């Protein structure tokens, strides 16, 4: 990326990190309110929710019968029948049936990665418009048959004679009939995501109070954003739900302090992670409309923000070198360096709250001299962010986190915040998005007010 580095001339730089390409702008977004699992969307499939989110976006921007350049979305928990989930949602929507679509899956980074991939296609001139999105249902999750039963059923399918079939069926044992439900456990460690984060939270010595405070802020910031009408053009109600059902506008630090720890109870150190400072399983869907400036102008559509650049990273959590959800700690400094930016050039930090401990561990790593020197190859600590700029309209702890839908939620909200902020000291307002993901991955991005 030598050329790209050369183009990064300093904090005033406002064009794409890749020279000679056009801008990809965020026109706007739409999501359905996020619902705690087993709640309002219990009977809704991923396809239902993604279609609803798409139809709300189409209505907001008058895209009926429009042929969009390309649509990408995905789900983390996905039925095998949904092999063409996004295309099926498009066919059920008010868009032109001639709109192509593809599915993408990168755990919790799915939504942000669809934005980055499609934005790149727009920047390169391959398409003029795109819709990025994501959806997840923990309520309507796929349940697989056990591995033993699956092998037997496949053998049965290959059998030719009745005798063969009976012989194969006789192999079924009661234990084979137990269904194989999805979980958030890491295949290589067997630990759940929460237990992994508990290790990291303890490693970075993040206090219970600090985690509860982050959760408290998330709820109060999100509630205030709703009250101010911030979400009036970002959300379309669905199935009787008008707001995220996980939101507790009246929660207090005292109330959060009463919750019992649920993760890290066997670590020897004090367990600090509760249901209050961890995100619950959630159902929901989000979409983001991306376009070239020309395409948006031709339709009188807003240009809220540009997608400046993105970066992915991964860590070796399997051998314990880094925590499972710490990849953004590495992706962010690489992305900032490539664009010649520092924390002081960022006006909004959108750090996905998988767990309060994840956000705080990441911030602690960035503030740590040793981590900066030994792991990031810097002269010292990467830096300290202004906490007044962190998740100012709430994040996943309050809104919930339907895995693949979180990226779209953040991109659309941040684009609106940047647009409202406009210019800061003669340069466009900037926002940083950081999303951690299963498998030790992370995807981060920078956006700028248009």
């Amino acid at each position, binding site marked *: 990326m030598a050329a790209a580095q050369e183009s990064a001339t300093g904090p005033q730089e406002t064009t794409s990190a890749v020279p000679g390409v056009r801008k990809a702008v965020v026109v706007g977004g739409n999501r359905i309110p996020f619902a705690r699992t087993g709640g309002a969307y219990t009977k809704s499939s991923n396809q239902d929710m993604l279609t*609803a989110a798409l*139809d*709300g976006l*189409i*209505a*907001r*921007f*008058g895209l*009926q*019968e429009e042929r969009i350049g390309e649509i990408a979305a995905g789900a983390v928990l996905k039925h095998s029948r949904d092999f063409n989930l996004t295309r099926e949602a498009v066919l059920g929507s*008010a868009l032109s049936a001639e709109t192509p679509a593809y599915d993408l899956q990168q755990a919790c980074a799915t939504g942000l990665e669809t934005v980055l991939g499609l934005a790149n296609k727009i920047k390169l001139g391959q398409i003029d418009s795109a819709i990025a999105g994501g959806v997840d249902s923990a309520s309507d999750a796929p349940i697989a048959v056990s591995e033993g039963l699956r092998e037997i059923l496949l053998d049965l399918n290959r059998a030719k004679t009745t005798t063969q079939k009976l012989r194969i069926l006789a192999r079924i044992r009661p234990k084979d009939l137990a269904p194989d439900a999805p979980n958030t456990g890491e295949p290589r460690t067997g630990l759940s995501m929460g237990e992994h984060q508990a290790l990291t939270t303890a490693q970075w010595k993040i206090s219970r109070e600090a985690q509860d405070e982050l959760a408290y802020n998330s709820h109060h910031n999100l509630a205030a954003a709703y009250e101010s*009408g911030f*979400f*009036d*053009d970002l*959300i*379309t*109600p*669905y*199935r009787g739900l*008008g707001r995220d059902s996980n939101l507790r506008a009246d929660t207090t630090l005292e109330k959060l302090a009463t919750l019992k720890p649920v993760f890290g109870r066997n670590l020897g150190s004090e367990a600090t992670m509760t249901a209050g400072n961890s995100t619950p399983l959630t159902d929901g869907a989000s979409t983001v409309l991306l376009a070239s400036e020309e395409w948006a102008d031709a*339709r*009188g*559509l*807003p240009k809220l923000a540009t997608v400046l650049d993105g970066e992915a990273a991964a860590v070796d959590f399997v051998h314990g070198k880094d925590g499972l959800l710490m990849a953004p700690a590495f992706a962010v400094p690489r992305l900032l360096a490539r664009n010649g930016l520092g924390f002081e050039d960022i006006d909004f930090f959108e750090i996905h709250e998988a767990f309060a401990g994840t956000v705080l561990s990441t911030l602690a790593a960035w503030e740590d001299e040793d981590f900066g020197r030994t792991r990031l190859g810097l002269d010292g600590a990467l830096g300290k962010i202004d906490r007044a700029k962190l998740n100012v309209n709430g994040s996943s702890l309050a809104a919930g986190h339907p895995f693949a839908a979180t990226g779209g939620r953040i991109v659309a909200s941040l684009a609106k915040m940047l647009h409202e902020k406009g210019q800061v000291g003669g340069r466009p307002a900037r926002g940083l998005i950081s999303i951690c993901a299963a498998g030790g991955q992370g995807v981060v991005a920078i956006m700028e007010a248009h």
Partner: protein
Amino acid sequence: MTDKYTQFVSQGLGRDIAKKLGLPQPVALRRHKPGDPLLTGPVLVQGEGIGADELAAALLAWGLDVRRNALPKEKLGAIVLVLDAVEHPDDLGKPVLTAGASLRDLAPNARLVTVSRTASSAATPAVAAARQGVDGLLRSVAKELRAGATANGIVLADGVEPTSPSALGALRFFLSGRSAFVDGQFLTVTSAGGALPDDAEKPLAGKVAVVTGAARGIGAAIARTLYRDGAKLVVVDIPAAGDHLAEIANEVHGTALQLDISRTNAGQRIIEHAMERHGRLDIVIHNAGITRDRLLANMDEGRWNSVMAVNIASQLRINEALLASGRFNEKPRIVSLASTSGIAGNRGQSNYAASKGGVIGMVRATAPLLAAGGGSINAVAPGFIETEMTARIPFATREIARRLNSLQQGGQPGDVAEAIAFLASDAAGGISGQVLRVCGQNLVGA
């Protein structure tokens, strides 16, 4: 889309039973569908003078089968009774009785339309008596007509010719299936302004229209009707109704604006949205409204204030923003939803009726403010309309309410929408500051 009773008495055994017992016999009304002929039979033009001759010529130019004298036993689609030249009550007898002799020949769902002049500015008591006489005449005939036939009147202000654009526009509206549930009403043509559309099926082509409260019921019907008539739609409703709003927006190929119209910047938001997305703003339909019914003795501040805030204060504020914007000055049209409650009152609705009475006052006072740019503002006052809201009225009360009009049935949301679409069109540009009731000539508040 007729209620079950109407279906039952419309044919066979049900019809015979209703006839024998003297029960109400509502019929399925003739409602406009694109491509339908204006009338189902010939139109008889009655009256003496230039006005009658000119109107007969205009109807002929629309391709109608026009009669100046009734033919024996011929079923008529409509009678147009032109009385613009009457100068004494004695002048009414001949044309009215001649028309009366043809009433038995009216086909089902036929139309009677009178054309007369406003009595308030008459030069002499005799002229005023003759002109005002038309009022009582028309309202009585409307109650005598059967089988879905309606009678409505066009009143010409001073200096407005019977063939002025909006007189013809109103005549076409009253003759058509668009006025199915308008009965026993007068519409005053206030000026010679307005223009007839190039394409009668797309009178709103090229116009950008905003409809508030569009997520469901009458608002959704208004959006659909304006879309059918060629308008580009911005549909507005509170964020909580956003899912239904999105459905309507996608159905009418418009844009959805989730907005609480009682917010102080609502007018600005509406103007910005229309200008940015669609480049213009021609029509605003103030449909959003709420009810918070209580007897006045039990009324609390919350109920009173919320109804006033949404139903009238928001409209006043949005209109002020529209007028001040400089973006709403090219033949702008505003149509506001009033209610028969606001005219006749309704037990338990003192707040709602005050707000709807307020709408009528606002419309009358705003008309002069819009006149300079060729603009107009009018109100439509629905009577009993079959909506989700009226479906919740207890059965017996509902059944009585829906039969208490000359058409003996409730109206459809689309009937209100048709009246609004007409008043929002350039054909109605010469009609301003008026209230048109869509109530089937409801006995209440007539």
